[in-house]
């Protein structure tokens, strides 16, 4: 028996001897280093294989995932369009005329709506729509998930929408073109279509320059659809369009539009145009056309209303054409300023070709200056016959008539100057009165600006020709000697103080100008209508150093109220001139007088 109380171990262990386990069972365990190493290696290989397998799976998932998983992975990625912003159209002082912003589109999902009728009533009465329209729209496409109720929610409706909590009614952001000044300069700016491309006006003409390029971003989403991250490889930056600064001044444009509308409404006229130009640069500061329209709602007006008639439509200018021909004939030496011209005492004159011409009233013997001051048709025709057709034709072409001005405005036409071979024996006496020639309002203002600026014909532009502070070097063509232009201006000043332009005789500024009352040609039966006119007035100011030229052309005023150019258009031009010059800080006559008085007082002391 084995003594259990003995201090000796219950079992002994040697490297080669079997162990005696409690209970007397004997086992053999191999503890050799070679075996441990072997087991270790096997384990390492196993772990490595497992890790490599995992790594391979990761690589496969990342690169070529199987179809079943690929669809799931794809559904957790979203591609979003990053909208670039179309360039903003600004006035000369940086005030916004057209810009792009995000608006809200209201849509409905009929699938989520149980009762169309009650839903339509709630939305209709809550937001101010016709419930019948809403119900009909849903009934027409019940399976659609996206029926647009309003393409552009206004602020008031957005606020009201917050109080409505209706399933199936939601908003969607949409990029829209906005015209914050409303209908101001609408004809000039034009408008864009639903796809954001310019369709008319400067929006169309400068589309390439102001159009934006959209970007794209692809981001990883979590299970709830929230954006996790974007990989730089999946990010394409949007490019905004270039901003466009115009020579237009919104304040002067606003004055011009208000004055034009007032004159047209007062004389119940059909339409009209008004142009304000800086004669020293050719910059157009205002270009108004009546009836006006808001580019934001362009599809609500007829296409003819949207046309920029300042450049697209022509008319026979009538007497406002006389200063151009008068100055040209004076330069040619056909008449001396103080030469007496016999216009007869009856107001009727028969030309050398047998044509009968009338003056509004007989003038008798008047000077060449007075021919222009009193707008004598007879006086103009007498001197024109001395000059001859060729030189008259040449003068018209020199002033830019018969071809587009080069303003670059969309739809600009060149007017009509008949080639010499088509001139009849009446033409020599018709042209000096502004007949047998068709011009655009812009051509007329441009030519008159040449008289205002000392005889240089400039190209009109709606973009600023220079930045403040830089030197002015403008390409222009000299069409009159400086002294002839200056002299013509002084004679035109008398037209305002003594002639037909007296209703435009401002006390604040010295205007020089010319009235025109041209009968409209009867294109069907030939000849002219006896009761349909274009009543025009074109003027510059101040006479000693002109800052602005304003031309107003009103079509078909009601003859029973008034139809003379000086009556219909004269006051409108004066109003625009006074308010614009004051706005530009040009000193008035009163302020000049006050300054001169102070100077005299200072010198006398």
């Amino acid at each position, binding site marked *: 028996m084995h003594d259990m109380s003995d201090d000796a171990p219950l079992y002994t262990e040697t490297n080669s001897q079997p162990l005696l386990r409690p209970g007397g069972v004997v086992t053999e365990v191999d503890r050799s280093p070679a075996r441990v*190493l072997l087991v*270790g290696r096997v384990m*390492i290989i196993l772990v490595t294989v497992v890790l490599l397998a995992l790594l391979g799976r990761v690589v496969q998932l990342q690169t070529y995932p199987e179809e079943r998983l690929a669809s799931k992975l794809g559904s957790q990625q979203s591609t979003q369009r*990053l909208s670039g*912003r179309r360039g*903003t159209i600004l006035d*000369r*002082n940086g*005030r*916004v005329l057209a*810009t*792009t*912003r*995000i608006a809200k589109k209201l849509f409905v999902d009929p699938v989520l709506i149980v009762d169309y009728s009650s839903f339509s009533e709630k939305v209709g009465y809550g937001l101010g729509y016709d419930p019948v329209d809403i119900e009909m729209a849903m009934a027409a496409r019940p399976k659609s998930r996206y029926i647009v109720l309003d393409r552009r929610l206004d602020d008031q409706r957005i606020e009201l929408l917050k109080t409505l909590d209706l399933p199936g009614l939601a908003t969607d*952001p949409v990029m829209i073109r*906005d015209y*914050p*000044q*409303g209908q*101001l300069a609408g004809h000039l700016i034009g408008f864009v279509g639903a796809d954001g491309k310019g369709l008319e006006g400067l929006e169309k003409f400068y589309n390439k320059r102001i159009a934006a390029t959209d970007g794209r*971003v692809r*981001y990883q989403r979590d299970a709830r659809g929230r*954006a*996790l*991250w*974007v*990989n730089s490889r999946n990010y394409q930056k949007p490019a905004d369009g270039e901003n466009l600064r115009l020579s237009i*001044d*919104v*304040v*002067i444009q*606003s*004055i011009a539009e*208000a004055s034009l509308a007032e004159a047209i409404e007062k004389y119940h006229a059909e339409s009209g145009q008004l142009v304000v130009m800086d004669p020293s*640069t050719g*910059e157009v500061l205002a270009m108004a056309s009546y009836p006006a329209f808001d580019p934001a709602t362009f599809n609500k007006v007829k296409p003819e209303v949207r046309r920029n008639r300042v450049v697209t439509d022509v008319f026979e200018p009538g007497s406002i054409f006389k200063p151009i021909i008068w100055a040209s004939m004076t330069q040619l030496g056909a008449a001396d300023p103080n030469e007496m011209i016999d216009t007869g005492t009856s107001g009727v004159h028969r030309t050398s070709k047998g044509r009968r011409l009338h003056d509004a009233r007989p003038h008798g013997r008047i000077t060449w200056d007075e021919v222009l001051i009193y707008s004598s048709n007879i006086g103009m025709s007498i001197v024109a016959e001395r000059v001859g057709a060729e030189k008259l034709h040449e003068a018209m072409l020199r002033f830019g008539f018969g071809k587009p001005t080069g303003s670059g405005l969309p739809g600009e036409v060149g007017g009509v100057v008949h080639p010499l071979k088509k001139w009849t024996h009446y033409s020599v006496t018709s042209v000096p009165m502004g007949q047998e020639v068709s011009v655009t309002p812009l051509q007329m203002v441009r030519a008159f600006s040449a008289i205002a600026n000392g005889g240089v014909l400039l190209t009109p532009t709606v973009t*600023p020709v*220079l*930045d*403040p502070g830089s030197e002015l070097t403008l390409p222009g063509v000299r069409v009159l000697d400086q002294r002839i232009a200056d002299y013509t201006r002084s004679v035109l000043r008398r037209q305002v103080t003594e002639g037909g332009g007296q209703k435009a005789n401002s*006390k*604040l500024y010295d205007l020089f100008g010319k009235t025109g009352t041209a009968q409209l040609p009867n294109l069907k039966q030939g000849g002219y209508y006896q009761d349909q006119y274009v009543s025009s007035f074109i003027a510059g100011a101040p006479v000693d150093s002109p*800052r602005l030229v304003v031309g107003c052309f009103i079509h078909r005023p009601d003859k029973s109220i008034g139809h003379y150019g000086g009556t219909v258009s004269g006051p409108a031009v*004066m*109003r625009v001139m*006074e*308010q*614009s010059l*004051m*706005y*530009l*800080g*040009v*000193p*008035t006559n*009163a*302020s*000049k007088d*006050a*300054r001169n008085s102070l100077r005299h007082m200072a010198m006398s002391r």
Partner: protein
Amino acid sequence: MFAKLLTALVLAVVVGAAVFSLRQQRLELMHEITGLHRQMNRDRQATWDTQVRIAERTGPRALHESLIRAGMVMEPAITGNDAGGNTGGVSGGETGGETITPFADARHE
């Protein structure tokens, strides 16, 4: 031998954890950048909206109507100062001593 293996294993785990941690940080940063980017986009669009509202409220007509609503009568204050300057350099408001009121009826009665 066992100690060497353990060391190698521990090192591998440490390196793996570091790499994993860096990757996680990178993803978090990318998420943050994405969030900021989206916020910037929203702010940019809100700025567009604000710009339009400012333009609407500061247009000549809107200002004129505001003056009428406020009961302010604006009249041209002509002084003897010569404002001068070119067309492009004048932006309205008060210019060289002359208070400019484009919509006030400047006609002499």
